[in-house]
């Protein structure tokens, strides 16, 4: 680091993009930067929120930070850190940690933490079983919520049963329950998460001390579980491929098929077609409740809402099944490999003391990690899909009453504004006059759409404010991987690496060259050709079905312990994750080189392609 003082812009120096002032002002007051924020350090949460936020989607930030902070600050009582504050500017979420620095306070919190967190570690399996029960109940509650609907007149049953409550009341009831469930889900999400990551990181930290040059990837391979729910959707696609062959309906599945047409055909080709459709229904509920992103944006649609992803994989899997190739995950072999890895590293340790500590730490990591891997299916995927789809139903209802040009415009309202629009509709249904909303929202929606587009083109500083000497907030290090070193890299980003090179986490080794296919949404998946290199924002196991088709994967977001990295390794697919800006810097069709062992992506452009060594 040079002696020259370098820093990030102060929050007060940031300008709202001209023309988007009203859209910026519409974010809740507690998310606006205010006096005093210049004295703190903030960073852009590009990991969870890589794109400008629709106003409604901001609820994910506040629900998550309400829960994360509560568990850190007041439930588990982490000694050196409290929660996360967040602010929004130009549609981007900046976050700042709240560190505990007073030694006496830390000391007092250590005592509390050991009473509380140690209880969780000691009763982990039992509490995690309870957790799954709580989540299933919460999901059942959300599924039971009625579709918002306003009849012209109340059904006669309302009178005959003496119900005493009219249909418009169900709107506010359903809406508030929808929000309540979402906030509650995030509490469940953080009940175990930091403790789980903490145990993992304790092992990680020990490995880095014992083996200073060990890759993150090697450590995560030692810890990674094999049975997490999040791997199941891909397994279901494989099952459907196998069933298609068994039932003799495999010829219906071709590259670039029209999914609706295929489903209609199968319904008419006799029992075997119907049987396959029944199998599809079994897989869909619940396993296709996975979205193609991390669940933080309403437009990260689930497989159930858009079957492109699983169907893109079917022809490839079917041809493998027909050629007698085993497509099942070799579980026993994967587990054996993991055990061997743990044993081989153990053998390299020098002392009995180290071996004793190593055994303690890997045992703890293996106990807690199923939660870290498993929770995402329930929280970020299944529940989040139900939540956004319920909001979509409100969007549909309001659109029918003229509130928006399109149903999905509902996501341009904050959750407070949406409640006001719902009340507006309830009032108008009640009074028999027209709602006011149709005269208000179309203009605001247009304004916010334009703002979102302007924000997307706006350069975002990776951090704001005073650079701290050290980042020792375990929550920030754990969840965002941000350290003093990574800040130095951000500060020198314009000077260092060659402009045709991107650095990320080495997720799975191997060097591959090929044409880049920049895929920004699930609709574009069908553009992928055999041998393409997938370049996308977020990759997670829900992309696994297309791994058979591509030669390498590059993502903007993700760490070496992400599921994506684990799945890539199982497929032997060279991958670099967490490059920050691959989808922006790499142009569709460019030739690129992916070095998954070093975490480097090189844009080759017109350079000739090297023959395989």
């Amino acid at each position, binding site marked *: 680091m040079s002696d020259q003082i370098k820093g990030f812009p102060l929050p007060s120096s940031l300008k709202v993009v001209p023309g988007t002032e009203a859209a910026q002002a519409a974010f809740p007051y507690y998310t606006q930067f205010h006096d005093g924020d210049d004295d703190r350090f903030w960073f852009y949460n590009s990991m969870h929120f890589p794109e400008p936020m629709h106003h409604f989607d901001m609820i994910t930030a506040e629900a998550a930070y309400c829960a994360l902070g509560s568990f850190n600050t007041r439930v588990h009582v*982490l*000694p*050196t*850190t409290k929660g996360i504050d967040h602010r929004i500017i130009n549609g981007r979420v900046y976050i700042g940690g709240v560190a505990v620095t007073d030694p006496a306070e*830390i*000391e007092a*919190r*250590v005592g509390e*933490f*050991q009473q509380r*967190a*140690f209880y969780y*570690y*000691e009763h982990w399996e039992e509490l995690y079983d309870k957790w799954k029960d709580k989540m299933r109940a919460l999901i059942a509650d959300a599924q039971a919520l009625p579709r918002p609907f306003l009849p012209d007149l109340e059904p006669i049953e309302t009178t005959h049963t003496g119900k005493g409550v009219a249909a418009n009341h169900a709107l506010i009831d359903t809406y508030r329950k929808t929000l309540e469930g979402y906030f509650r889900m995030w509490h469940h999400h953080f009940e175990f998460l930091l403790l789980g990551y*903490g*145990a993992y*990181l*304790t092992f990680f*930290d*020990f490995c880095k*001390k*014992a*083996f*200073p*040059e*060990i*890759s993150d*990837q*090697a450590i995560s*391979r030692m810890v990674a579980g094999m049975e997490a729910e999040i791997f199941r959707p891909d397994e279901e696609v494989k099952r459907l491929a196998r069933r298609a062959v068994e039932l003799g309906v495999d010829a219906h599945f071709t590259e670039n098929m029209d999914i609706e047409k295929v489903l209609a055909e199968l319904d008419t080709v006799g029992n075997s077609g119907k049987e396959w459709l029944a199998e599809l229904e079994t897989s869909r509920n619940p396993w296709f409740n996975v979205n193609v992103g991390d669940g933080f944006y309403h437009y990260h649609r689930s497989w159930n809402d858009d079957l492109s992803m699983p169907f893109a994989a079917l022809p490839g899997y079917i041809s493998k099944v027909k050629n007698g190739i085993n497509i099942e995950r070799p579980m026993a072999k994967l587990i054996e490999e993991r055990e061997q*890895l743990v044993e*081989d*590293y153990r053998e*390299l*340790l*020098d*002392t009995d*003391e*180290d071996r*004793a*500590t190593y055994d*303690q*730490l890997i*045992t*703890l990591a293996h106990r807690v990690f199923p939660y870290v891997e498993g929770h995402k299916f329930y929280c970020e995927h299944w529940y989040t899909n139900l939540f956004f789809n319920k909001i979509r139903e409100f969007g549909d209802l309001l659109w029918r009453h003229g509130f928006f040009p399109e149903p999905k415009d509902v996501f341009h309202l904050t959750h407070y504004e949406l409640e006001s629009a719902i009340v507006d509709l309830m009032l108008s249904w009640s009074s028999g006059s027209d709602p006011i909303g149709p005269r208000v929202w179309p203009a605001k929606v247009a304004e916010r759409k334009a703002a979102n587009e302007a924000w997307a083109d706006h350069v975002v500083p990776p951090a704001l404010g005073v650079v701290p000497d050290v980042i*020792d907030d*375990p929550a920030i290090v*754990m969840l965002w991987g941000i350290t003093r070193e990574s800040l130095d890299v951000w500060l020198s980003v314009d000077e260092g690496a060659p402009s045709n090179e991107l650095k990320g986490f*080495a997720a799975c*080794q191997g*060097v591959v060259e090929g044409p880049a296919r920049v895929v920004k949404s699930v609709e574009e998946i069908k553009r992928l050709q055999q041998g393409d290199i997938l370049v996308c924002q977020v990759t997670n196991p829900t992309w696994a079905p297309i791994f058979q088709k591509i030669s390498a994967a590059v993502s903007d977001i993700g760490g070496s312990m992400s599921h994506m990295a684990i799945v890539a390794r199982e497929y032997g697919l060279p991958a670099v994750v967490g490059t920050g800006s691959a989808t922006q810097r790499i142009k569709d069709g460019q030739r690129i080189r992916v*070095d998954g*062992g*070093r975490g480097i992506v090189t844009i080759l452009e017109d350079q000739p392609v090297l023959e395989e*060594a």
Partner: protein
Amino acid sequence: MSATDAIGWFADLRIGDRPTVGGKGASLGELTHAGIDVPPGFVVTTAAFEQFLKALEERSPVRALIEPLDENDLDAVTAVSRTLRKRVEEEALPPEVEQAIIDAHARLGATTVAVRSSATTEDAEDASFAGLQDTFLWVLDAQDTVHRVRECWGSLYSVESITYRRKHGLPEDGVAMAVVVQTMVDARTAGVMFTRSPTTGDKSVITIEGAWGLGSAVVSGEVTPDRWVIGKITGEISVRDISDKHIRQVPAPGGGIVDEALESEMRTQPCLSDDELQTLRGVGRKIERHYGRPQDIEWAMDKAGKLLLLQSRPETVWSARDAKPVTGTEANPLKHVMTIFGGRKG
């Protein structure tokens, strides 16, 4: 092998034979025994040297000339060195020693050999001493081999060697030299391999350095080698530094080696493929397991892509520092998590 044999074949040698065949010779024997491919060969033992030295001493004193020398009196050391090297290289060998070398050379059946000093003293692990010993590459015939063996012996009486021994007060009685004679590998690529990190001491990685042609260019530092760091257990290649290798060393037609300038394209191409790196890793792990400690290895890959080991010795720098626990022990495993959650520094 008997302590009085003039010749020891690699297949018959173990690490315990070091006093008579030197470190290099014993190591090659041990590697052969462990099933590692080394270029076949034999060692001209210290017994052969002792026999020759006895014959020399009978004619006129050798060791007695050295012991009274003052290491700071360069003129005197130089004069003695010149005299003794000339005698070692030119005076008649005991016929049975000469015949033993010629017979062994014939039995080896190699067209060309490498002749390398193999010192017996513990100090030979000290790089400063090891560097004083000679190696002759691409030696063409039996007569030349005998001559090079004598040159290796003669290197014991170089100005640097004598000065080194006088400075460290090493007794002349214990000074002996074994010489390795082995089939010469006309290497496509060669280099060195450490089965731990030279920079951090990490035992979970293997560092490989290599360049085109003979390994002498890498060992002597005449070429900046390509460098890779590979996970010992996982095989991940985490560092690939491909350098500009402006020359390679190749066999000279009349014996010995010669520098050859490289064309631009070859200069910047990796001298090993990923598969070859993995083969090296496998062999490095096998040798390390055999010895039970990290190794410093010289290797060569022949034109057909076959990997051969030229030398393996224990890594000494980091090994001396080992055995301190990474972190304090805890009866309650949960206490370890405080290194992450704060309130205690690990």
